[in-house]
């Protein structure tokens, strides 16, 4: 029977880049953000647009992307399940390249989350499950939906608002080291607790930014991967799942079940590594609790231990488990589907080019992301050896 371990280390990321700047880009439409990211990743890999024969994107259709870029790939993936979609695309691209469906895959993200130029979205249809069973109660975007599990975690495990705040504090400390980050002033737990209440227990500084930007990746097979200007970053393991659309259908509000049962075990098994091998982690931080649920579900700590763990600053600069070293969605940038930026930072750390925020000796990194409100789940394990 085919086994995913056969695809370990068979495909590498050889191009990785973001838009020239991220943050506030009223000069760019959504499609321009995709295209600028694609051109920058091509330049990073020393390739031309005409070299691309596989395309994956989310938020917009691959048809829209290929029309805009003027290419006609032989493999496409339009899996669009929220911010973690790009991690899923990487996993799919590994299989597609190994199968010979495509040789040179481009994955793009572009989102005018702040300026809303050419952006989609809007209220759910009244007959959709969200329109019937969530919208009537006044949910108003991620701050009032993604946050709903937290009170249960607090009740069951004793998690506190101070511990939630510590996640934001540790992440901001990394952003201080990243000149591209939108928010670069150091903050304290008190600053977080004193910031405006958005949806208890979340204060403003527990919530991600809303920005414009994009990023792109280029993947090729092991045989070609060493012939590019950049050090290859190998895809060692991947996992993906979906478990609900609306937050009201979450199976257990105290845990990220799909990560614990499916994507984490699948990714670690395929990669053939253990938790101790992970030198660096990117845990998608839409809100302070998202990385806490990641840490627990992936088995880095036991259920309920993530609050004290973050409060002890293990994940901050100088700590023994660096997490979200670009400053995360909380302080670096968050266009809406941030997963692409989490991959970009993992690649930068594995290439050893993360400048002031570089973690010494990174060989293996994990990237983990939700799509929607813990709706989809994706895990990648990447390495540079």
């Amino acid at each position, binding site marked *: 029977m085919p086994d995913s371990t056969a695809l370990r280390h068979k495909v590498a990321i050889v191009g990785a880049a973001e838009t020239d700047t991220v943050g506030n880009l009223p000069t760019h439409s959504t499609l321009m953000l995709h295209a600028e990211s694609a051109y920058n990743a091509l330049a990073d890999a020393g390739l031309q647009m005409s070299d691309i024969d596989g395309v994956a994107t989310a938020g917009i259709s691959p048809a829209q992307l290929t029309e805009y870029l003027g290419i006609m790939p032989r493999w496409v993936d339009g899996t669009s399940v929220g911010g973690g979609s790009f991690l899923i695309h990487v996993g799919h691209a590994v299989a597609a390249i190994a199968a010979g469906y495509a040789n040179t895959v481009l994955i793009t993200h572009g989102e005018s989350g702040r300026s809303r130029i050419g952006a989609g979205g809007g209220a759910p249809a009244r*007959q959709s499950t969200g*329109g019937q069973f969530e919208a*009537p*109660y006044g949910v*108003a975007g991620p701050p009032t939906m993604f946050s709903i599990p937290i*009170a*249960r975690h607090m009740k069951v495990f004793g998690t506190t608002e101070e511990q939630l705040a510590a996640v934001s504090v540790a992440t901001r400390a990394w952003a201080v080291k990243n000149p591209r980050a939108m928010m670069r002033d150091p903050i304290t737990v008190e600053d977080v607790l004193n910031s*405006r209440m958005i949806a208890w*227990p979340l204060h403003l500084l527990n919530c991600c930014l809303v920005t414009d930007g994009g990023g792109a990746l280029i993947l090729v097979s092991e045989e070609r991967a060493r012939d590019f200007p950049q050090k290859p970053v190998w895809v060692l393991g991947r996992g993906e799942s979906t478990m609900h659309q609306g937050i009201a259908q979450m199976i257990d509000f105290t845990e990220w079940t799909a990560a614990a049962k499916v994507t984490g075990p699948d990714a670690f098994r395929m990669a053939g590594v253990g938790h101790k091998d992970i030198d660096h982690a990117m845990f998608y931080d839409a809100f302070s609790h998202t990385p806490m649920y990641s840490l627990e579900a992936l088995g880095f700590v036991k259920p309920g231990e993530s609050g004290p763990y973050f409060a002890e600053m293990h994940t901050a600069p100088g700590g023994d488990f660096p997490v979200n070293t670009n400053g995360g969605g909380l302080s670096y940038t968050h266009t809406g589907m941030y997963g692409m930026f989490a991959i970009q930072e993992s690649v930068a750390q594995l290439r050893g080019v993360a400048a002031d925020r570089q973690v010494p000796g990174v060989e293996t990194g994990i990237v983990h992301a939700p799509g929607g409100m813990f709706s989809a789940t994706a895990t990648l394990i990447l390495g540079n050896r």
Partner: protein
Amino acid sequence: MQKPPRPLPEATPETKEFWDGMKRHELRIQRCEDCSQHYFYPRPFCPICHSRNVEWRTASGKGKLHTYVIAHRGHPAFDAPYVIAMVELDEGAKMMTNIVGVTDPTPDRLPVDAPVEIVYEDVNDQVTLPKFKLV
């Protein structure tokens, strides 16, 4: 400034019994006859064991406050702060709702696992929403 309209549901074939029940002030949910579990939202099979042997029941309307947020910056049609909650019905199914009747909602007034009871909010001739109050 005039408020935008409230988002209101529109029934589909498999949810019509629930919304029709709301108009009669009855909480109609489904129970799986094979695994004996209640579930929500309505669909013509059990999402837990995947049996299609399911029946409509009238639930008690009693339950517990499972988890919630207090929206301070929420939907413009709502007066903030307001409580968006998950209620676990005594029958076992969970549903999203609002907790009503708590003026100036704060976490200490809304203990997780507190008992709650349904309140039917007749929004208009077509729509009644299930809301809950602390008891």
